[in-house]
């Protein structure tokens, strides 16, 4: 597989992942710097066209970080997010983008280590998929 640095957008719920990312930063552990963060009040706020827009802007991968099941501050936000993401993934596949470019993770606000693991592993999986076929040439 060709080596390239993918563009990745990570949508983060500010009640969990956004905080975990922050702690990871404070720990100075380092994570792939090509991950661009987008702060959301809740993963349930994430809209399908935000994900599509990220791909249009040239993202090679989109990660969504939500709270653990049954632990959403807003009760059902993460459930709504997971359903929307499932729907978006199938849409991506139908329009010729690998659905693996869209990934969904559960994270609590203290799980900075899990965040690091997720982005490292996610980064690798996007790398192995190669650059997004829609990248502006």
């Amino acid at each position: 597989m060709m080596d390239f640095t993918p563009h990745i957008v990570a949508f983060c719920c500010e009640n969990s992942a956004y905080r975990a990312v922050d702690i990871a930063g404070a720990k100075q552990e380092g994570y792939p710097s090509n991950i661009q963060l987008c702060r959301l009040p809740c993963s349930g706020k994430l809209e399908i066209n935000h994900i599509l827009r990220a791909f249009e802007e040239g993202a090679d991968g989109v990660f969504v970080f939500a709270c653990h099941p049954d632990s959403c501050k807003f009760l059902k936000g993460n459930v709504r997010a997971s359903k929307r993401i499932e729907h978006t993934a199938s849409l991506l596949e139908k329009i010729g983008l690998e659905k693996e470019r869209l990934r969904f993770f559960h994270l609590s606000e203290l799980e900075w280590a899990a965040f690091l693991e997720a982005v490292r592993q996610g980064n690798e999986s996007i790398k192995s998929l190669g650059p997004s076929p829609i990248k502006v040439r």
Partner: protein
Amino acid sequence: MDSQVKIGIFFCACGHIMNDYFDMKVLVDYAGRISGVSSVDENRFLCTRSGLDWLKTKISQSGCNRVVIVGCSPYLYEQTFMKVLEEVGLNRYFLAIANIREGCAWVCQEKENLMTRAKQILSSAVKRAGFAKPVEKVQKEINQSALVIGAGLTGIQMALELQQLGIRPILIEKKPQVSRKNPPFFIPTTQKINEREMFSSKIRELRDSEVELLTSTELKKVAGTVGSFQVILDTLGKEREVVVGSIIVSTGSESKVGGRFADLPNSRRIVSLSELKDMFDFERRTLERMLITADKRTKYACFVLGECEAYTKTNTIMALNEAIKLKEKFKAEVMILAKDISVSGIELEALYRQARERGVLFYRYAEESLPEISLEKGVITVSLTDPALHTDQAEKSRPVTIQSDLLILEDEIYPHEGTDLLRDALQVNLNEWGFFQEKNIHLKPNLSNKKGIFFAGSCQGERDIYETLNDVRSVAMGVYSYLSGKSLVLEKKVEINTDKCALCLTCLRSCPHKAIKVGDVGAGQKWGAQVIVEACQGCGICVGECPAKAIEMINYSDNQIFSELSFEG
């Protein structure tokens, strides 16, 4: 972007940290060239008092109307900077933070990417600030009272402490009366505390206080939000509404014989730990009959632990306490069978040592050889193989058989009946074992996911008496922080454009906080969905759902989100 927008960018060098990572001159230069930016300034320590004063002056001088702070994590000083904005007369949401410390400097391992990422973060923040809209503030009267659900030790103590803080408590209890006959389920950690006496004295204290106690009363419905919850209470079928500023759940937990032996035949000689505790207090004679007889034969009492789970703290504490009491009062031979005894907690190591010193025998059994219990003609036989008991290296451990006069089994601790209903009424979360779930077990152990609703005591799971009292103290402070003032300022974070609203009711159905109403928007206007500001928690789920794009979360607009999706810098 609005042409009226003038963005001021303020760099914080964080002492000298930033200079260690970035070529600040290049960044400042870059910032100055982003469209919409009217001024760029630098400071060594923005978060210091002098730094903040400097910021205030600079904002006023530069005439900017949007502020981007380039520095550390928004979790650290976002609120502080928002305050500064308010002080200079800007809306607190006209702020964006470009977190290049936790978000860049300390992240990038490859030096060559540092500047690119920093520019990216900076340009996103500037765009985001450019699209910022003012968030309207709504003042709300506060009701300086609190509803405490469940008059156990926790609930009573809670009500008493709140009253001391000047918050009027209403204490409700499902049972017809609060008495020491119906003891709550909680565990003292040492022999020094007699929880029943403690409870009795609390009941007396309660009677002497002005706390409003409503027995045979349950919570039916809750509306509203912190500062003003409208609660429907049901007292023996009669409903009444009360308005309280905060709600504290202290419903406790229940216990029953759990584990493998839950189905053993009924016998007076087989009891659960909590039953044994009750017998000490109320049925001493029965115990005496079982454990003291004329024949001078040694009497045996045997505890079996580790059936429900490998280790539950409350069961261990209770077993140690009761074992010591049996030993002291009846001179019985007392044995504790367990997979493991762990005694982490205040004074627990001492309790264990005390038990050993008094001659309580501890047997260990392994997962693969669980103790067997049989009951024949009233005789209880317990047999187990302790891996530590073998006479010879080569020889296998010999089984131990105990004929016991009293068998004590573990309690399974489970959430109080009705917890599910209460969860639904309060719209809070339960954890995987069905107990109320704290917002964050380490950082916010007593907060629920909803502002103004708290949990205390064993409704959250196992608690010993110290932990329970700690809960009470921290919740009391939490309630006080909300209700000490006269009013509460709420922010209207979500806006519905009724012209675009198709009245599809999707938001009404999907809002987890019931913060949407549909009706007359105002005199002479058409119907539309509206946000109930007091109930809105600002999650934006309705925005995600609205098919007409009629709902906007003011500082998470499409444009602002798109600001963070482009790759440049």
